């Protein structure tokens, strides 16, 4: 008993150390974002000696910077809406029916989630050029469907399979039409699943850069790609780079908070 009590008291050490390890590089980035460039390059300080908001000011006043955020958010939201909307009926079909080629289709969808974006970068560029879609938000939103639609189908199918089929049958007996049943009864039942699927679409579209960068030049350029141009005549603008990095972390941190109770189940693709 004594030994067990002791291990229980000590068990907080492991996660704490791990979280410290996670936060250390982030702390350094935040630290840098409040420094001037001279302080960053000339001295080595653990907290900013002369805290400045200049770096953030640059980002919020220069359209080249803040439009990057707006672009990213536009295509991420577009992609999330498209992916989840298209995936809902498909996931229902996979969870409730057997049909010709269903297993092959499911597998084929899955392979797209596994496909390396590098393979698709060049053909995407040519395809979207042919349609005149280069440098539009919708192009990136559709391109990201490559990995987000299969993911959304998969997560939603996991959550839908947890809803007993009797509910569908009862609703039909009560005289509900399929669309009405789906929207009014079924969707509220899997609301958490829809939330998790949307979260994952948001996440993977937000963190992806290779395809987003290939398909955009100026008008729809994502913030992550803007960050690669901080080299100016006077050398690297480290402060602004750090501030931009910090600002890309914030949206993610916000959405995590909303799905914290479901995030683990989502990573297990609704199958725990």
């Amino acid at each position, binding site marked *: 008993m004594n030994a067990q009590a002791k291990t229980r008291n000590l068990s907080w050490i492991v996660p704490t150390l791990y979280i410290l390890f996670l936060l250390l590089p982030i702390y350094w980035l935040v630290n840098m974002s409040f420094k001037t460039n001279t302080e960053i390059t000339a001295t080595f300080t653990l907290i900013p000696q002369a805290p400045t908001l200049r770096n953030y000011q640059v980002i919020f006043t220069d359209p080249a910077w803040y439009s990057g955020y707006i672009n990213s958010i536009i295509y991420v939201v577009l992609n999330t809406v498209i992916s989840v909307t298209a995936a809902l009926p498909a996931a229902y079909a996979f969870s409730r029916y*057997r049909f010709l080629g269903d297993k092959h289709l499911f597998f084929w969808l899955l392979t797209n989630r596994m496909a390396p974006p590098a393979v698709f970068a*060049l053909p995407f560029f040519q395809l979207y050029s042919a349609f005149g879609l280069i440098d539009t938000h919708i192009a990136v939103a559709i391109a990201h*469907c490559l990995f987000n*639609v299969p993911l959304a189908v998969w997560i939603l199918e996991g959550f839908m399979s947890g809803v007993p089929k009797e509910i569908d049958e009862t609703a039909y007996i009560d005289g509900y039409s399929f669309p009405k049943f789906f929207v009014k009864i079924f969707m509220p039942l899997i609301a958490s699943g829809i939330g998790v699927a949307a979260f994952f679409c948001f996440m993977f579209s937000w963190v992806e850069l290779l395809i987003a960068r290939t398909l955009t030049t100026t008008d729809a350029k994502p913030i992550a790609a803007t960050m*690669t141009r901080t080299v100016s005549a006077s050398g690297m603008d480290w402060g602004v780079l750090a501030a931009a990095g910090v600002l890309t972390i914030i949206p993610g941190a916000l959405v995590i908070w909303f799905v914290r109770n479901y995030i683990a189940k989502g990573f297990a693709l609704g199958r725990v």
Partner: protein
Amino acid sequence: MNKTWNNKAWFMVLPVLVLVAFSAAIPLMTVVNYSVQDTFGNNQFFWAGTAWFEDVLESDRFWEALGRNLMFSGIILAIEIPLGILIALNMPKKGIGVPVCLVLMALPLLIPWNVVGTIWQVFGRVDIGLLGRGLAALGINYNYVNNVFDAWATLIVMDVWHWTSLVVLLCYAGLVSIPEAYYQAAKIDGASRWAVFRYIQLPKMKRVLLIAFLLRFMDSFMIYTEPFVVTGGGPGNSTTFLSIDLVKMAIGQFDLGPAAAMSIIYFLIILLLSWIFYTVMTSGDETA
């Protein structure tokens, strides 16, 4: 669950099919097209057969990049999976600690991949980084820009930083699904800590661990952005992975034929892995 046979379900899948056809099938056909043709420019193509495939398969460049990929995946799996299990086992089970741990741990997963690269770049730099300065103060000669070992170490630590949380979250989800009664029974039987882990926790985590293992393997196998930002594939070619090499070839040098052939070989490897993944997952669905 009993599923009814209904081919009308195809109509429900149709929107997904159209979307994925546009974003995957058509682009993939373009790649296939390029892989068997050669060009003298001016959009004039002629049949090249399997020449490009032979070129790629005979080149050292491809096999070296593939080897680096496999080595990288092997190392990060060997670190991340045991570490993830260890952390998940020690996570708090209830109280305010749970959401705090979950949110803080999930944080790296939500950072855009090139920002992850940037964070580690500035963290590791010898002139301005905390890690670089710290190691220098300890008398360790560390420089990821021109030392192969340091470059690899940085990439591996970065990947552990970035993705171990995925393993932790999955294992945690598996652990909390174990009923309290199991632990009580083990206690009555006087089971040791190791026995509880070996016979109760590990079997319950088997499925989530498989998911974690395969997801991590496949994602690390197609890693691109982070090493591109941190090392740019160098020093020399020492961190040039398949994706980096492919993008260099296709977009940098515009060698469409070899790049397309390499894409297809790369894709086939991934396809094989996906098939293993799918088989494992669905056989689990049936027994569970």
